[in-house]
């Protein structure tokens, strides 16, 4: 696989994403146009997409997307997968020859369910079982990388400009109700296929513009809970932070935001008492999960999207609404490229999340066990 990391190029990255809150699906053509408009923000060393609602015929199966360096490691990994999962279908992900996309790994996809006897034997819930197996493959099988493992969603990424990556994966053939995209301009970490965004785990996905100064503090804390950071880049940690806080520890999303992008202490001191107590608790209990450094991110999940800036807004982010659509992007023009006349356009403040969730009807059509729990009534631990 192509590895590049000896030079340091300061700048960049582009992010874009949208959701149709009614769950109506659109093809990948739109998100490609949006991210392509910000071509200058990336340098051809990474592009990728996350799409939700694209595998309705396999909605009960975990869709594993893997990169392999060669067929030997593929066969070894497939033996491991078959030992742990019942496989409904597997094979190469359809791609097309595309100018500018070179040095390809093998790119395969499997629709799987965990073997029930193993779940009973380990007394483990399905999600936890899948996370453990993903971590196992990524940390102990050199040359095999799981880059997508959610239900009815998928990540598509690689080394190249995002518009070329989109063409390569034939994304115009998929239809989803949530799409996010990333154009990469690697700064401190290598530009390689596994290092392109989005970074996913279960149905979480993150696209990220920025860098995390607190990476090692975050990583050490995550590793205590079994999340292994193996992909040579900081963004991976953000995905695992949301998996830990929201899925494993059952925090509502607004509290998770108070952990990763907390207001400064003097701002917390000025809050009304109840809010102050939540913010103090979040910062004290999870001080190791504060994400320090500049970032704008789009978090995707089966239930919706959230866009967030670091607390002093060191990276660009614009949001817009039009009917049932919510759009977020690094630049307003990237939104207007696919939605010329939004009802409303705004720039969120640092640390202020922009949240777009599927409405109840659309949610019922989705699976029961989604992860993005927001309502105050659900503020109990589900672990």
């Amino acid at each position, binding site marked *: 696989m192509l590895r590049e990391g000896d030079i340091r190029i300061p700048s960049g990255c582009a992010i874009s994403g949208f959701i149709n809150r009614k769950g109506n699906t659109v093809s990948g053509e739109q998100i490609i146009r949006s991210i392509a408009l910000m071509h200058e923000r990336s340098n051809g060393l990474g592009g990728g997409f996350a799409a939700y609602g694209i595998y309705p015929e396999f909605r009960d199966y975990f869709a594993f997307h893997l990169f392999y360096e060669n067929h030997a490691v593929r066969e070894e990994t497939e033996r491991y997968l078959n030992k742990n999962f019942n496989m409904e279908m597997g094979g190469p992900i359809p791609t097309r020859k595309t100018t500018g996309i070179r040095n390809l790994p093998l790119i395969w996809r499997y629709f799987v369910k965990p073997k029930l006897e193993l779940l009973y034997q380990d007394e483990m819930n399905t999600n936890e079982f899948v996370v453990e197996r993903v971590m196992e493959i990524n940390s102990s099988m050199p040359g095999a990388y799981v880059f997508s493992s959610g239900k009815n969603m998928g990540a598509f990424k690689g080394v190249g400009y995002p518009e070329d990556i989109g063409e390569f994966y034939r994304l115009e053939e998929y239809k989803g109700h949530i799409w996010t995209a990333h154009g990469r301009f690697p700064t401190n970490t290598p530009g390689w296929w596994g290092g392109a965004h989005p970074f996913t785990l279960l149905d979480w996905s993150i696209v990220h513009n920025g860098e995390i100064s607190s990476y090692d503090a975050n990583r050490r804390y995550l590793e205590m809970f079994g999340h292994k950071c193996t992909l040579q880049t900081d963004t991976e940690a953000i995905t695992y932070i949301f998996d830990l806080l929201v899925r494993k520890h059952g925090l509502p999303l607004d509290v998770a935001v108070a952990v990763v992008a907390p207001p400064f202490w003097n701002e917390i001191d000025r809050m009304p008492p109840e809010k102050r107590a939540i913010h103090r608790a979040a910062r004290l209990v999870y001080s190791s999960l504060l994400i320090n450094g500049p970032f704008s991110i789009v978090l995707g999940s089966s239930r919706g999207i959230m866009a967030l800036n670091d607390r002093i*807004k060191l990276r660009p982010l*614009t949001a817009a609404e039009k009917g049932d659509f919510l759009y977020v992007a690094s630049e307003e023009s*990237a939104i207007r490229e696919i939605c010329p006349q939004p009802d409303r356009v705004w*720039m969120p403040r640092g640390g202020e999340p922009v949240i777009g969730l599927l409405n109840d009807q659309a949610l019922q059509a989705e699976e029961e066990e989604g992860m993005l729990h927001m309502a105050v009534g659900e503020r109990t631990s589900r672990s």
Partner: protein
Amino acid sequence: MVTIDARGVYYMHLNKRIRQALKDGALEIILKNVNGQRYIADAIRGNFSFSIEGVPGNDLAAYMDGPHIVVKGNAQDAVANTMNGGTIIIHGDAGDTLGYAMRGGEVFVRGNVGYRVGIHMKEYQEQVPLIVIGGKTGDFLGEYMAGGIIVVLGLPDDMEPVGNYCGTGMHGGVMFIRGNVPDYKLGREVQKTTPTAKEQHYLTGIVSRYENYFGLEEKTVGGMSFTKLAPVGIRPYGNMYVKF
């Protein structure tokens, strides 16, 4: 007058066409269907005028020296980066770092602006840059500001016209903010005072120019009271590295 349809035109080609049109003698250029093209009117010197329909990309009018630009929509980040002279009128909102290191000329924004507006703005003798913001601002307004003038009207009301950390590191220039600014929003390098009669007269002129540019009825924003923010000292970090 030359009209250029910018729809789908790559920024480099668009800027080449603009420069060619100016070379061919155009004094006024209308850009239609602009969407995200960067570096428009950058480093252009002279008495030209531009009308931009759509959303121009980042670094609009960077290093510009002289032209008059009207943006009939929103602008993105880093408008007027290191601008030296001329006027920019933006009929919508503008993004972060507007007027970054600006050293001359004027920017009028009808609506809101993002974070770090006027960061590192500076002045020298008759070169005094001016930024007028009709709406509200994000945090770090006038960060490390070394010169020039920033006026914030805070429309449509005078509630929270500026964000936090206003004037952090400021060591030159002056800001006039409509209404009061609570102390906790100020960087420790600025102090609040009341504008003098002469300054109040200057602000009345600024407000009426704002009303004219954006076709508002006179006195819709009249009768405003302002807080003046000025630096405590000219070298706030002079001793930062010499103590130890």
